[in-house]
């Protein structure tokens, strides 16, 4: 299944057989190879969860930090070295739950990173509690009467906040996911690719079949630059679930305010001590 490429890293993976995370990993590898990137030019950032293990399974730089805190760390790394290509791969619990506040503000900042959420609508690593995207009624050990908190719709939120690129995919559809990741990376600013990912061990509602029966690819007649249409499209969930580019919106990225691509990255800059003297002189 996996095409050998220079991002491929052969190690044991602590994922269950059949988990949708494998295909997402392959899609990421393929997208990066298709974009002709080299491993040392790429940084993969994650939080904690099953999805968040991905940076350990790919040949690239990595930052595997805290549950929920991938986005601030990715922001810091991108600011420190804007020449790095920064991707975040983490779970729905991580990004939309524990890190929900950061999700909002990363979009507002429009920092040029690509966020890939492995949305299995469940907490995988902690063995099957509801996540912010779990459907109403899902019964778990911590939601014994079924989920009655209305699900969080990340796409609606991202469109509302004028994210630069908002897409949804289904992990099984690897070529499609690869293409969306490539497009997300190529789009300047903050890109969200929410990937529906079956968790075969704990989510017995949203299975491969459940997703396969519902997802449909958006075709050329859909215009992702129209915000009100995009908002409507993003709220579609149920018998039919659209996948593809939901919204595209070109606006200034965070670093456009400070840095041109050719500029020296922060990590290469040096403080001029003579100029520090000028600060001291201001105090006389």
């Amino acid at each position, binding site marked *: 299944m996996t095409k050998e490429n220079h991002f491929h890293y052969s190690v044991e993976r602590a994922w269950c057989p059949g988990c949708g995370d494998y295909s997402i990993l392959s899609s990421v590898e393929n997208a990066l190879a298709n974009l002709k990137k080299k491993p040392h030019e790429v940084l993969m950032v994650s939080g904690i969860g099953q999805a968040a293990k991905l940076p350990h399974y790919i040949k690239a730089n990595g930052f595997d930090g805290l549950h929920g*805190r991938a986005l601030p760390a990715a922001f810091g790394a991108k*600011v420190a070295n804007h020449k790095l290509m920064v991707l975040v791969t983490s779970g729905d619990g991580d990004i939309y739950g524990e890190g929900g506040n950061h999700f909002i503000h990363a979009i507002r900042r429009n920092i040029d990173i690509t966020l890939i959420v492995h949305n299995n609508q469940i907490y995988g690593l902690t063995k099957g509690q509801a996540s912010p995207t779990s459907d109403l009624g899902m019964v778990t050990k911590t939601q014994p009467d079924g989920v009655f908190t209305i699900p969080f719709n990340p796409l609606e939120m991202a469109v509302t906040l004028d994210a630069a690129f908002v897409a949804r995919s289904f992990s099984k559809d690897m070529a499609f996911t690869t293409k969306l990741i490539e497009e997300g990376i190529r789009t300047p600013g903050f890109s969200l690719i929410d990937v529906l990912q079956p968790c075969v061990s704990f989510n017995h509602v949203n299975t491969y079949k459940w997703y396969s029966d519902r997802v449909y690819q958006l075709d050329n007649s859909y215009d992702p630059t129209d915000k009100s249409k995009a908002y409507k499209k993003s709220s579609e969930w149920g018998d039919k679930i659209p996948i593809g580019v939901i919204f595209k919106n070109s606006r200034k990225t965070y670093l456009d305010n400070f840095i041109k691509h050719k500029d020296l990255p922060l990590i290469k800059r040096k403080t001029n001590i003579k100029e520090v003297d000028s600060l001291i002189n201001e105090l006389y």
Partner: protein
Amino acid sequence: MPFDFNITIAGSAGQGLQTIAGILTKVLARNGYHLFTSQDYMSRIRGGHNFTNIRVSDKPVYAPTVSSQLLVALDQESVEVHYQSLTGPAIIVHDSDTIKVIKARNIQVVAVPLAKLSNESGSPVYINSVAAGVLFSLLRLDLKDLVGFLETRFEEKSPEQIKGNINAATKGFTYTSENYQNIKTTIGTVRKKNRMLINGAESIAIGMIAGGVRFISAYPMSPSTGIFIYITGKAKKFGIISEQAEDEIAACNMALGAGAAGARSAVTTSGGGLSLMCEGISLAGAAEIPVVIANMQRPGPATGSPTRTAQEDLDLVLNIGHGEFPRFVFAPGTAEEAFYTSIHAMNLAEKYQVPVFILGDQHLVDSSITLDKLNPNKVKYKSYMVKSGNLKKPYLRYKNTKSGVSPLAYYGQDKVTFIVDSHVHTEDGHISEDMVVAEKLTEKRFRKINDMKKEFYGPQYYGLQNAKTVLVSWGSTYGAVRETIDYLLEKKKSVAMIHYNKIWPFPVEESIRLLKSRKDIRVVENNYQAQFNRLLKRETRIDTGEPILRYDGRPFDVRFIVKKFEKRQK
């Protein structure tokens, strides 16, 4: 003739007492006076009441004094609040049209129609310049210096406003000179010398800049915000990026992302925000990411008193972050010390790849002192990253070295890849549950302590050699304790002080050497639980006497310490 003169400028928020204090202190510093100025933002009796104390002397001064010889009362309340603390022969300056002052022996009243003179100069907003003019006349300062200041400092104002201010200042000056020629003041003369005036926030900020900070993130919280604002204001000039985060959790993790990528990073916060950074600090410990955390204390718990001072977070910074990992904790005593400490902090964070705390407080950041100079070359910026081209391959981010410190690279350096990780991990940063890996990793991190102990300087001694009684200060209590020592030495007491800036790793041997066989050891600190006293006893196993504590949100002064000290002595 030696002199020690305290000026209190008091009023409600928005009356511009900062402006008057700003003009006066700048000119005094330029003329060679030694100053210690402190800010007190009160909120008692009918809403806000603020004051600034400006202590003027012919010799260096390190702490505030409570009693005052000159009060500028900008409202009636200021007269009532500060009347008691005037020591004669004192002066009260007030607006003759709006404020009433009861005449008393030993009080000289200078009643000037401040608002009227301001209006005559073209606008009611020039009142601060009128007051400045009054003060210049009373303190026998040169009107030319005041005019010069208004011309250069107010250059962003329109020519008309500058003229108005100068007019107003001149009117205040002339009115006072004509009507209050006979007022006796005790401010002496000093040899002219241009001194700088700096507060703790500026010194930490400039120290961080000199120490090569490249990225700073924070969520605003008093009293730390001044540092963040200062660096943000200079960010463009120095190629720094500053970001106001959505919360302190984000601020901390942003700094860690930037730090992992190879940019020197810092965060500024105060207690509540620090609490939110707890997990991030643990990540810095686990993933060995350099970061400087400037925590400026205010009284807690919870919201506490935002504009007051305290030293209640010592236990917190010594322990913050779950799990075990090494760290540095510094608590500079003065703005001067804070500057050099901040440069060290930036260097040491990178050298040892550990979190470094600068523990200050409201008293440190908001108080200004005069200094002859600061030398940004005294503590040099030094990079501890592997030089480009010198990376040994295969590169192991967490290489188990003898010193415990692994070679530090940035992502993609010399075309290598590596992962920075929060789990128990192998030398190449990958998750491991192997017990040998776990044990070795912990030992590697803690081996750093051996060299960390040798860094920086130990406790500083001041006073009589072999003194029987030793007062111990840490952080901003330095100034008041030092002046207490001077006071007690004059009374022929056998006293000295030991000041701690480096608090962790705790300088055990040096402490024992300095403290053993003293008759009485008294720690002075701004908290209830005597946190440093406990630490000192634990680390040295030396018994100490009853600590001198203050936990009312106010800084120490000599009178307070001496009173508590003598109470025990009886």
